[in-house]
């Protein structure tokens, strides 16, 4: 078991090293002739106006909240799904009730008009 995660750790290192090596090669062989025009921010030929790291209104933040609920709850569903073969019908129905409560939350958000683009 620990060996498995050691393998994943090795994969992490090698997987990062291979692309990094490609970048390194490019850094060695590619020409370097920077100038201010070349390095300016690309905006279809226009001069940038103001700050680039702008404050942005994420219109879908309600979706993100609904997502958070679903994402956490589905993690609870994985152990249930794995052991489903050994569970009695009652436990299966209990899991289904759990999902129904989740869906009730989604329907509530829907009825409240939270799933509309504002």
């Amino acid at each position, binding site marked *: 078991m620990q060996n498995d995660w*050691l*393998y*994943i750790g*090795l*994969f*992490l290192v*090698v*997987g*990062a090293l*291979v*692309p990094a090596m*490609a*970048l390194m*090669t*490019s*850094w060695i*062989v*590619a*020409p370097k002739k*920077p100038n*201010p025009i*070349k*390095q*300016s*921010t*690309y*905006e279809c030929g226009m001069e*940038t106006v103001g700050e*680039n*790291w*702008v404050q*942005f209104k*994420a219109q*879908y933040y309600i*979706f*993100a909240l*609904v*997502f958070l609920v*679903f*994402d956490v709850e*589905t*993690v609870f*569903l*994985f152990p249930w*799904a*794995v*052991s*489903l*073969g050994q569970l009695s019908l009652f436990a*299966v*129905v209990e*899991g*289904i009730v759990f*999902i129904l409560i989740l*869906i009730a939350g*989604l329907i509530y958000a*829907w009825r409240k008009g939270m*799933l*509309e*683009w504002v």
Partner: protein
Amino acid sequence: MNFWTNPVNFVAQWLLGLLTGWGMPGWLASLLIQFIGVVVLVSMMMLIDIFLVWIERKVVARFQDRLGPNRVGPFGMIQPFADIIKLLIKEDITPDGADKLIYNLAPVLSLMSVLLLWAIVPLAPVIFGVDLNVGVLYIIAAGAIGTLSIILAAWASNNKFALVGAFRQVAVLVSFEVPMLATMLIPTVLAGSMGMNEIVQSQNVWYIVLAPLAGLIFMVAAIAELGRAPFDLNEAESEIVAGYHIEYTGMKFGLFYAGELLHAFTFGGFWAVLFLGGYRFFGLENLGPIVAAVILMAKALFGYWLIMWVRYTVMRIRIDHMLAFNWKFLTPLAFVLLMLTALMNALLRGTSSGVYILGMLLTNVILGWVIIEILRGLSRRERERIEGVATVKNFPSPHPLSQGERGKG
């Protein structure tokens, strides 16, 4: 044990004997062998990645009635190597005000996240990186690093277009992850395990037969997660030029490109593992692990080809339509499907396999039919509403513009 029945273990045992024979301590030798295994797997994926460039370009050319690359080498197969050399010797431009460290880290992360996914794909019964017992969760966890790299790239490159692209990517992530998780639960329910190898082993009948709707939803959610058309809003050319990789040149762009292609191929592979029986093909996999690996690769290519087919056929959809499609259609459908599958799995337990397969298939077919009927009713109501408005307003002509021109002449 010989090379044909278990090549990886055979070579590993031979190396272990060789290294310990040289007086290397046992733990160091096994660590070194694991390291060599990782390097071989990663290099293999990189090699496949290079050919994916050629495959993608050839297939898109066919979809658009062109020939595609056909000059460099036989059928243009050397073309990707020429591309790589070109990308390597391109000047690397870092924009003013970019966050240097994150700017350089993002392309590396983008490719790394995809390579990480191959650690758990079972190529054959005995050829796999690791057989994690939480494989399905690992896909979600490692796959999310790709989205993180997109956000980092956009934020670090100090560009408004890139920032908008990243915001859109977040919208895709927070919505399509939910149906994807729910449909990944269905193979887990059917196999009773989260391990990839066990899921493949239990597919005496491919899960695409037992759960066709789940396979479909998983494919759609995967395409959205990949950011491919019709969900490629994060790099919509006509709106935000190139999205998150707008400021990247040379090899850094190349890494993003390679990562995207390999990601699509990887999800083709996961689709094959979860729904198409992985390396199994009517007993052909018993010939040997190498044959099994070839079968899995062929199935992954088929999944990849489906993704390409959708990409070059369907038009890009608007972001609010995309979110509505996910939250009002895919998510409820995926959860209803999960509940029905769990219930039917419990009810049909103990029956003969023929009844079980038929029951599962019928559940899916009936649910699909009900969904289509509901959609048909909704679209009819919508059409009547629009037509009603049109008759009330009573437009003088279906083409006001052409009438205006006629009036002028």
